[in-house]
């Protein structure tokens, strides 16, 4: 699998953009700036997904992460007071000893990663060498034929990807039960976050009516 030509150019542009924005996310003093840099990281990663031929996942990434999760983050930043950190009265990072320890740990971790990727990649290359030239050409031809068979879009400037169709078919044929479990998980998350974010007054109103009435937190009979 290699990218070539303009794909390679866009790969480097978006990869560097993702890394720089990720670094700025954890370095920014203002939490809102952090959120905005995280959005640019997510968009760059979505662009990498498009380069890898996963158009549906790229769309889901932008809709769910950028449209949903990050808006939630911005709301919570608005609700809690982070002014002290912004003005520079509060330290941004933990105490120096902790930061130094984690820096050493992370340098070792990334060196280990790069070593492991190089080693594992040699293994993958060895696996590739086992695949015969015929099989390689066959899968390349299959890919080319699939691309040629795509329907043009309404404006005729681009082709409609079948990625969504493939993912949907695979999702419902092989992962129908996990799909249902995921919906239950989302329901639990909604109910749980509503329970967690109640005010003390609301909590008293639903949990312990007698005490609440005694303390005068609720005044009407309910």
């Amino acid at each position, binding site marked *: 699998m*290699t*990218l*070539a030509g303009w794909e*390679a150019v866009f*790969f*480097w542009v978006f*990869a560097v953009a*993702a*890394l720089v924005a*990720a670094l700025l*996310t*954890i370095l920014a003093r203002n*939490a809102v700036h952090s959120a905005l840099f995280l959005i640019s*990281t997510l968009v760059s*990663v979505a662009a*990498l*997904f498009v380069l*890898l*031929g*996963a158009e*549906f*996942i790229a769309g889901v*990434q932008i809709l*769910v*992460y950028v449209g*949903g*999760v990050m808006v939630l983050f911005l709301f*919570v*930043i608005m609700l*809690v007071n*982070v002014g002290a*950190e912004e003005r520079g009265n*509060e*330290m941004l990072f*933990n*105490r120096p000893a902790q*930061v130094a320890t*984690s*820096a050493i*740990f992370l340098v070792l*971790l*990334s060196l280990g*990663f*790069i070593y492991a*990727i*190089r080693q594992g*990649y040699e293994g*993958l290359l060895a696996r590739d060498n086992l695949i015969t030239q015929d099989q390689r050409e066959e899968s*390349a031809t299959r890919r080319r034929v699939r691309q040629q068979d795509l329907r043009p879009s309404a404006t005729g400037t681009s082709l409609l990807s079948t990625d969504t169709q*493939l993912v949907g078919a*695979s999702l419902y044929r*092989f*992962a129908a039960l*996990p799909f249902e479990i*995921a919906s239950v*998980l*989302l329901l639990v998350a909604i109910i*749980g976050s509503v329970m*967690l*974010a109640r005010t003390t007054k609301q909590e008293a109103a639903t949990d312990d009516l007698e005490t609440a009435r005694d303390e005068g937190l609720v005044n009407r009979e309910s």
Partner: protein
Amino acid sequence: MNNFIASAFALVWQEAATPGRWQTIRQGVLEPDLSKFLVIAALLFVIGVAGVLTRRNIIVIFMSIELILNAANLNFIAFTRYLQDTGNLNAVAGQVFTIFVIVVAAAEAAIGLGLVIALYRNKETIFVDKIDLLKW
């Protein structure tokens, strides 16, 4: 110390002077393959872990966790494309798994931010080193 620097230079020089080394690097830059995606994902993961370990603001820690999950997603998608090109396994299994990762990330963000709001209401702070109720 000087000795150490000299030997480090010697190592780098030896690596750089290997015949065909620059050719390989040039090839890798012009035609990025699977390993480049894996390295980018590993760096994103390490940046995310750095955020989790060093920041004090709990909201930024949550954002770093999202970065870590995204690095995992990038690995899944890269291997999906690799298997599409070289094998004939279920070609979109990685993409299906990525959807589940995104669902769990959304649920985690909702619960986590609910916790942050409850915490702020009770403790008036969102700095993790000031939240030490469970510490003896």
